[in-house]
């Protein structure tokens, strides 16, 4: 597999074409319909290309109940947001786990190809390991994760 294909894995292109949990959950209706919890929202932008994301996390006690998002950008940034939202939905993470996960993700992406993300831990998002060899794209992949970090801090 050449480096380009390692960056654009099938899974990434799939997520970017069919983004999961896209569309912000109604924040006001939150408590009544979508369940208990506090809502944290974050808007992040990559100033170079104008890519942007708005992410909403519902935190129920210490648990991240769900994540929804909206945004536009390159396939990496879109896939990354989609995969992150999936991961939260599947794993039912605590705040502390989420923070650790985000830190681990950041570290791997900044490793210049040294660290691989573990599929057992990161699910589909492990396919983003290849991004770490493309320093200019690390920001794209990080966008949603930074937004989650910020959103749960606010929730």
């Amino acid at each position, binding site marked *: 597999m*050449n480096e380009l294909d390692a*960056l654009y894995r099938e899974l990434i*292109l799939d997520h970017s074409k069919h983004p999961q949990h896209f569309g912000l959950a109604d924040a006001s209706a939150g408590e009544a319909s979508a369940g208990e919890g506090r809502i944290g929202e974050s808007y992040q932008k990559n100033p*170079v*290309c104008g890519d942007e994301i708005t992410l909403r996390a519902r935190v129920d006690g210490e648990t991240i109940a769900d994540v929804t998002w909206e945004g536009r*950008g*390159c396939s*990496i940034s879109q896939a990354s947001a989609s995969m992150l939202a999936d991961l939260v939905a599947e794993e039912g993470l605590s705040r502390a786990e989420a923070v650790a996960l985000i830190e681990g993700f950041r570290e791997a992406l900044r490793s210049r190809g040294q660290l691989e993300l573990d599929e057992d831990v990161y699910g589909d998002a492990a396919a983003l390991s290849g991004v770490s060899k*493309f320093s200019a794209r690390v920001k*794209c992949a990080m966008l949603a994760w930074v937004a989650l970090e910020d959103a749960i801090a606010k929730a």
Partner: protein
Amino acid sequence: MTTATSETPAAAATDPLDAAALARDFPILSEQVNGHRLVYLDSGATSQRPLAVLDAERDFLTHANAAVHRGAHTLAAEATELFEDARATVAGFVGAAPEQLVWTSGATLGLNLAAYSLGAALRLGPGDEIVTTAIEHHANLIPWQELAARTGASVRYIPAHDDGTLDLDAAAELIGERTRIVAFTHVSNVLGIINPVEKLIALAQAVGAVTVMDACQSAPHLPLDLPALGVDLAAFSGHKMMGPYGVGGLYGRAEVLESMPPFLTGGSMITTVTLEGAQYLPPPQRFEAGTQPIGPAIGLAAAVRYLDGIGLERIHAHEVMLAERMRAGLAEIPGIRLLGDAAGAGNAPRVGLWSFDVEGVHAHDAGQFLDARGIAVRVGHHCAAPLHARYGVTASVRASTALYNTPDDVDVLLDAVSGIRPYFGV
């Protein structure tokens, strides 16, 4: 690929240039990127430098380096002469006299200098208007917005037509009695279109407004005679015209420069300093506070000598040929939309660059795909976010040429671009 042509002085101005041969003057162009020959199509961001420029700066630093204008010792005298010769050379390149050229660190500083200093010179205030265009680079946009915010003046924008050309009727309406400054780019760094700046200058002159031109994308690509053009101030950057980083020029008409107070203050721009205050030298020194970029200035002089040696007419003709080849090729690739394709046929006069949108593929992904084939293009909003908003995109891919690009470079690009949408499955 063009072939070398024998030159007679009379024919030189129109003889096609041998880009492949010229490319050998640029060491970096023989680099390999991702296993491919580097195809550098990002000269709009920064050009590459010929050996003559690298050597001029190094020769200076290893034989004559010293602080200028302030020492009586031999090196300082030599450095001062080289530095002032460089000023004369670079001024001459845009048709100007040495004292009309202010050294800056680049176009951004030149435009900020213009904004701060004109704001003070004109005592701008509420009711005054600054007119610029909706297609400016941020460097010729935000300084005016900030000036307006500081002074209470307002900024008005000349809109662009769908084809990327400026709406001159709107310009004639906008430029009126309240207009104090008219700022515009000579060539858009996104659209590549050469704007009808004579007309804007005429409109401004009719109402007594000061004109400020962003010449970043014209200085390396078109023959310029700024005094003949009649513009009041014009800024350009060395690194976009085969010169070093860290140097640029601000051209100014003598009366206009005279009327402007200093912007940056410090050493070497004063006549008298006491604890009570300072008196300033006449232009250009008035605007050159502190140690100037001496090595870079000498490098820039070598760069414009290099450009002049080839001839700007020839360079322009070559780049227009490349642009037309690029346009024709891109137009045939499904899903490619060119920004600023005037009249659908590239009819507006232009330099050798095109920006485009690849339908269904984000510019970042398209750029990444091209990079894997050794092709360096620029992706993003190219520091012209309002322009992109005008054309309904947030980012685009820009391929920009210079004298060292060959038709083969364009063909490599075209071949690769045709593979983008298939690769991403759209």
